């Protein structure tokens, strides 16, 4: 592990980038995911179809392919962004499909009576979704959402393919000089495991606090 300690400053830099990627992509994915979920249960047929197509498309493409396509393809249609921004946007869009899917199963698990009661009280579609359905749906999906965040954390390492210098990319560069793959990659793996366990711990706590006794 001493190889890693020798390169602590760059490891730290890489870690910061990985955390930036993780946090920003999660926020983006959460917002988009809620939006897509809303589309999928909305009264407008086109929106429902769009929402479904969105989830279908992005769940069925490897993230790596999406990243490379977006990075090299979008400038050709006049949209060019920094690699880090491109990575965050693409990971957000990709993970939003998973969040939307999880949320939808959560929405489906909320009892029928809840929606009926909300409507009976005169709440609009937006109000009943936002105040009645989603909060309850969220409770049942804390665990799946935690899994999605963990997966997202791991997935950020693919950003290296479009020149984002994250933790894994720094590790690869160190290995190029030191040629000691085992300590380097095991050490970096431990860092990922730590981040992911942190996420797992928080969602576990959240779940315990949010889950209703039925």
């Amino acid at each position, binding site marked *: 592990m001493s190889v890693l300690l020798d390169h602590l400053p760059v490891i730290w830099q890489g870690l910061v980038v990985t955390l930036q990627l993780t946090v920003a992509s999660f926020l983006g994915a959460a917002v988009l995911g809620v939006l897509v979920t809303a589309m999928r249960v909305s009264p407008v047929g086109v929106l429902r179809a769009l929402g479904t197509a969105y989830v279908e498309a992005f769940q069925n493409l490897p993230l790596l392919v999406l990243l490379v396509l977006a990075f090299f393809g979008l400038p050709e249609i006049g949209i060019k962004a920094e690699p880090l921004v491109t990575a965050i946007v693409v990971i957000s869009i990709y993970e939003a499909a998973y969040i939307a899917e999880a949320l939808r199963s959560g929405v489906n698990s909320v009892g029928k009576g809840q929606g009926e009661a909300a409507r009976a009280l005169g709440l609009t579609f937006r109000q009943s979704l936002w105040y009645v359905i989603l909060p309850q749906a969220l409770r049942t999906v804390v665990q799946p959402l935690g899994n999605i965040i963990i997966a997202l954390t791991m997935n950020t390492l693919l950003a290296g393919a*479009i020149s984002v210098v994250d933790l894994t990319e720094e590790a690869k560069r160190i*290995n*190029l000089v030191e040629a000691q*793959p085992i300590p380097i990659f095991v050490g970096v793996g431990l860092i990922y495991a730590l981040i992911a366990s942190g996420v797992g711990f928080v969602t576990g706590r959240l779940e315990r606090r949010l889950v209703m006794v039925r």
Partner: protein
Amino acid sequence: MKKMVAVVAVSLLGLAACSSTNTSGSPAVPGEAKPAAAEWLAKAPVADAAAILPGSTMEKIKKRGELIVGGSLDAPLLSQQNPVSGEIEGFDADMGKALAKYIIGEPKVKIVNSASETREALLGNGTVDVVFQTYTITPERAEQVAFAGPYYTSGLTIAVKKGTTGIAKPEDLNGKKVIAGANTPAIAAIKKLAPKAEIVTFGSDPECMQALKQDRGVAYVQDETLLIANAKKDPSIEVVGNPFTQDPYGIGLKHGDEQFKTFVNDWLKKTQSAGVWQQVWKNSIGTVVQGEAPAPPQIGSVPGS
């Protein structure tokens, strides 16, 4: 339980069926090395039976009837698979075939595609016999693997979009964004000569080229040969200045196998004196670099070899 097994089996069958319909009628890529008509191959020497020492690595390879080479499939001019024929073409690939002929009598090669991160491990655990993959000889690497050669010397150079000014030598890259291939020696070289340059890396040469054309960086540092080939294909790119490094490429062997190293070095000398080395060069790198084949580097001339 039975039902569940059935369910799982059905979904698996579905998977298999679905993929097999997609490939129906597609035979495996013709990987069998068809007898290459190249004249250099006919000239390539074969080792004396006495040189294949009993119990040696070369004897093992000869008995197997196939040389297992660690190399690339996606390095144009050096070791690039041709999707049409399935053949792997280029300088490194042909040198591998020549070595196979020397040991076995036939150019029977299996290329195990290896990444820069995995070469040491593949050699160390005997998955591959040799590595031909722009493997620069360095004293650090020589602690983990043995190097025969060097068999070729190349250098890094700089490519820019045509019309770019102010970049003529590596020092000019300071403070600029520079594109380099992931896991290539360019990264360390840029860090050394232009420490203030910001290095952006991509996984393959065409991706680096695309990035250069899309202004993801002002310059692209890569092996001279590759860049000359690129500039030939794409007139919007030009190569500036001369190579600023000397990278001696070695043939990677298992660490400590002195017997095999001597054997491979002998082969290298023979292929060079027979003119085979030069012809291999002409067929590959020589198709983009003008002039006659350069003089091959002195064997054992670099620290680590």
